[in-house]
């Protein structure tokens, strides 16, 4: 009998503490509005709730912005950052929009530029129009601004740019008899030639990437101003010459053992950190990951990416990723949110120069690029002033067509390329891919 009583007590205690846990986490996820309501965004006062991801990049940036705003404008200002993966931000937002209840949304959310067009065209009611918010948009790079603009209205405050950089290990290149200059301003033919020598002499791959989400192809396309889309956003996969060339190059690289295909993002990161690859080509935000490898400091250098050979308008510059801040429709204290963004991401040189050394986040706000911090040589990157170089790259990047169905079509083309790699006929596979992509548009 005593045993029974004891077990009942124990179970009761457990159940009680678990409910308490649930209650507790409810409170914290509610963002703790001042009135203690279960709203996600704060319900007024001096507090803002922000969702963003990457503790090495976006999170320190927004926290720095919060600090600056608190010091210079409003000493009662409070900022709550909820770490939310990019995918989770999108899933949560979508769930809110579908149910028509935005109550759990934060005040400000960071979104990938490539996703935003989809969200704003499907759920315009989720975002607040910033056109009349007092934020000066004229100082942002125009190409970047186009991602967050719909029908002439500004919805987002641009944050980092995604200018593509090629990062290489100079010590590995050196072993193969090359310097960073040999690999600057080249085309893909030359790149493959160098890659073969590197593979032969060092056993290392030149690049790596996820086979199921083709970033490299997207970057190659944009470097020539091409894309998977027509001007009206419909898919353009058949008879797209730049695309065919990109697929050829990609195929060649994988066959020659220059490009290491992996299945997941973490494998991609570890292929770099385990020194399986001599380098990587990606949006400059990848540098935050590379800088995590402190023991390789000084061995890395950046340069521009190779350009397409046959395509007419090919350049050595492209873009991948980058994101912008959006104010959700759940934000009760929009004045505070507008003022915060206007005085930090759209108005504080200090912010951009403070976050630069720790995160490497390159802003797209014009005046930031002129700050001295951008000219400073970076020890990790062989004492080169890489940040001003990246700003230069960003200015040279061609723009291209995009679509609300960006990820749908990218997935279709990734699938098609995987099929082609395993021996399927390229032409018919692409025709099928075009049909698949058009199917999603219906």
């Amino acid at each position, binding site marked *: 009998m005593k045993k029974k009583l004891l077990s009942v007590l124990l179970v009761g205690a457990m159940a009680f503490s678990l409910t308490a846990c649930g209650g507790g986490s409810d409170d914290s996820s509610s963002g703790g509005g001042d009135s203690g309501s279960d709203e996600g965004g704060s319900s007024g006062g001096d507090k803002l709730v922000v969702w963003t991801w990457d503790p090495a990049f976006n999170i320190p940036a927004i926290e720095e912005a919060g600090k600056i705003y608190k010091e210079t404008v409003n000493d009662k200002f409070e900022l709550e950052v909820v770490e939310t993966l990019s995918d989770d931000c999108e899933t949560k937002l979508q769930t809110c929009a579908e149910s028509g209840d935005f109550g759990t949304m934060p005040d400000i959310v960071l979104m990938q530029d490539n996703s935003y067009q989809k969200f704003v065209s499907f759920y315009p009611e989720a975002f607040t129009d910033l056109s009349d918010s007092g934020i000066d948009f004229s100082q942002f790079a125009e190409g970047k601004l186009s991602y967050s603009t719909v029908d002439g209205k500004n919805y987002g405050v641009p944050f980092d740019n995604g200018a593509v950089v090629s990062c290489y290990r100079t010590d590995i290149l050196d072993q193969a008899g090359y310097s960073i200059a040999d690999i600057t301003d080249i085309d893909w033919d030359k790149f493959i030639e160098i890659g073969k020598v590197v593979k032969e002499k060092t056993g290392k791959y030149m690049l790596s990437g996820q086979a199921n989400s083709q970033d490299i192809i997207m970057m190659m396309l944009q470097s020539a101003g091409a894309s998977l889309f027509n001007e009206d956003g419909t898919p353009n996969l058949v008879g797209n010459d730049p695309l065919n060339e990109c697929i050829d190059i990609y195929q060649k690289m994988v066959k020659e053992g220059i490009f290491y295909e992996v299945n997941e993002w973490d494998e991609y990161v570890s292929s770099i950190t385990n020194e399986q690859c001599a380098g990587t080509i990606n949006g400059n935000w990848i540098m935050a990951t590379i800088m995590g490898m402190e023991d390789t400091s000084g061995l890395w250098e950046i340069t521009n990416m190779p350009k397409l050979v046959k395509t007419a308008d090919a350049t050595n510059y492209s873009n991948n990723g980058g994101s912008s801040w959006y104010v959700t429709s759940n934000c009760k204290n929009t004045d505070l949110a507008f003022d915060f963004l206007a005085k930090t991401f759209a108005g504080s040189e200090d912010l951009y120069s403070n976050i630069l050394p720790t995160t490497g986040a390159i802003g797209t706000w014009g005046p930031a690029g002129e700050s001295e911090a951008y000219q400073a040589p970076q020890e990790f990157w062989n004492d080169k002033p890489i940040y001003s170089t990246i700003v230069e790259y960003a200015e040279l990047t061609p723009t291209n067509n995009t679509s609300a169905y960006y990820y*749908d079509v990218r997935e279709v083309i990734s699938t*098609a390329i995987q099929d082609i790699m395993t021996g399927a006929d390229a032409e018919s596979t692409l025709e099928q891919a075009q049909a698949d992509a058009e199917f999603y548009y219906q």
Partner: protein
Amino acid sequence: MRFPFLYTKFTILRSLTAKVTSFENQGGLKMEQKKKGMTLIAKQKAAGWAFLTPATLMIAVMSFYPMIRAFILSLQTGKGANYRFTGFSNYARMFEDRVFLRSVGNTFFYLAIQVPIMLVLAILLAQLLNNRDLRFKGLFRTCVFLPCATSLVSYAIIFRFLFAQDGLVNNALVKLGLLDQGFNFLGTAWSAKMVIIIALVWRWTGYNMVFYLAGLQNIEYSVYEAAKIDGANGWKTFWGITVPLLKPTIIMTFIMSINGTLQLFDESVNLTNGGPANATITMSHYIYNTCFLRAPNFGYGSAMAFFVFIIVAILAFINLKVGDTRD
């Protein structure tokens, strides 16, 4: 097998209903004896219904209401949250969707290969561990059951690490001299499917074994002894006694496994991410992608979910009919 709670809920509901009916039956007898005043009977009846109501209400609100809403949603299409009725267009769309058809194929492939392997293994293990003379039975049983206690996501991720190009399995194969360099298990269509099946067998065999063990415990040992005296060997007793007497359990595990496999999601998402080139994507994974990864289409997603529901219902029905021994 992924979500057995629905099944459990029904069982509880059914046993409660049975109790109420038996109350009524008893009541019927007593009523004749004591026509006046139904106090005791009525009280019992009321008590029965009182016990039933909370569970019934919960199931209705938490399960049936969403199901009905999902069905209504499946008849609608629209951009964003603005839906309008379009009849059965979503259902028609399904059969033109190459990726969906592929996911159906994949799911049935898993079903056809994995479920028989798993159930046979489970029944053999149960038979072994039911041996009276076996020492440390408890320990072995726990070991076989333990995989079930792992979270679906974490075990799928661990399998992904094991079978990565520089993972444990590849390292072992290279060190043993069987391979020159790591094989891309998850990047090759057939091997990616095999890895999923291996993972599923590892995760769910112990779970099914427990049901068989419970079933075996209900078989009188004297039946086996009698068979032994009549000269039946191990194989014969297995087919002549164990399997027929376990039949209800086998049918139950079959239905649960079919149901679970058709709703396979975590493994496809976390182990292979549906790749390479959709070679391992399952129906549920594709439904999720349609709703959340792609340009959202919740109506179409619901329609596909209902398609899965109908298939599960049909297969369970066939299973019950085939397994029914009553004439």
